[in-house]
């Protein structure tokens, strides 16, 4: 077996580990939500971790050129972060609604 075959075999083995980790995280999310009640921050952190694992190891973005990662990811995160401007108006609606 040459080094290319060894690295391919390692990569496919890693995919099964990532699959198991994603599933364990999904179960953990539900168990924690059922026992302690859902915490938005915890849920989002676990979701981001699962998404990072899927993008890196399932979609193989980690194996692409860094330039591609730079062209795709920071702008997406920036747009999603900018969407957070809505929260002030959402709280305004909650507190100023007529009862």
């Amino acid at each position, binding site marked *: 077996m040459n080094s290319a075959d060894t690295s391919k075999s390692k990569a*496919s083995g890693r*995919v*099964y580990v990532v*699959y198991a980790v*994603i*599933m364990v995280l*999904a*179960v953990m*999310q*539900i168990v924690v*939500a*059922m026992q302690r*009640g*859902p915490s*938005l921050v915890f*849920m*989002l952190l*676990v*979701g981001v971790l*699962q*998404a990072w694992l*899927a*993008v890196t190891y*399932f*979609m193989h973005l980690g194996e*692409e*050129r860094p*330039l*591609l990662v730079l*062209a*795709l990811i920071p*702008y*997406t995160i920036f*747009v*999603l972060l900018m*969407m*957070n401007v*809505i*929260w002030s*108006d*959402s*709280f305004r*609606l*909650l507190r100023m*609604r007529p009862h």
Partner: protein
Amino acid sequence: MGGAVSQANLAVDSHIGTMEAKPFAIPSSKLVMWLFIISDAVTFGALLFAYGYIRNASADWPTPFESSSIWNSLLMTFILVTSSLTVLIALKAAQADDRAPAFRWVIVTAVLGVLFTVLHLREWMDLIGKGVRTFHNPWGAPMFGATFFAITGLHMAHVIGGVVALIATGLIYKAGRYSAKHIEILALYWHFVDLVWMFVVPLVYLMNMKR
């Protein structure tokens, strides 16, 4: 002066017929799929933010999901993540040019997608049976149904579209007219559908769990 012009002409001539190297070192079709995924991620992001906006602004937001719905969502997660694994196995077979196993695993992925859709529709029917409509429900804030059906419906539409694409691409690949590259691009899309679900479950199901 004349010498300078001829030098410039020579420089231009030497580039005629050559292509600029691809900056990302991936096929254009794969880049297009990545750009689609990014724009679709922002679309789902906008929907989830809109849901968060309405949920936060509503004092009487319903929390109707009982433990049976939550375990059903875990089963759906298991099916979808497993389908991501099976499409990777199909891709590996396709890259080794093993067409029959690659086609078989693509079809297994499509079947898992159908199973996911059936479970999801069962969940929808259960909620509709309890009186949930897009702008009405028996428990509280009327927009609950609109946000739930919009987010999960868009995701389900992606799954159904993916199943159709998997079957079509699988058949064309089996016939020898598509290569492993096409399976790889479709696999990217399928993983993205899986990725979106990782945010739908906690934000839509777990945050609205009955307590």
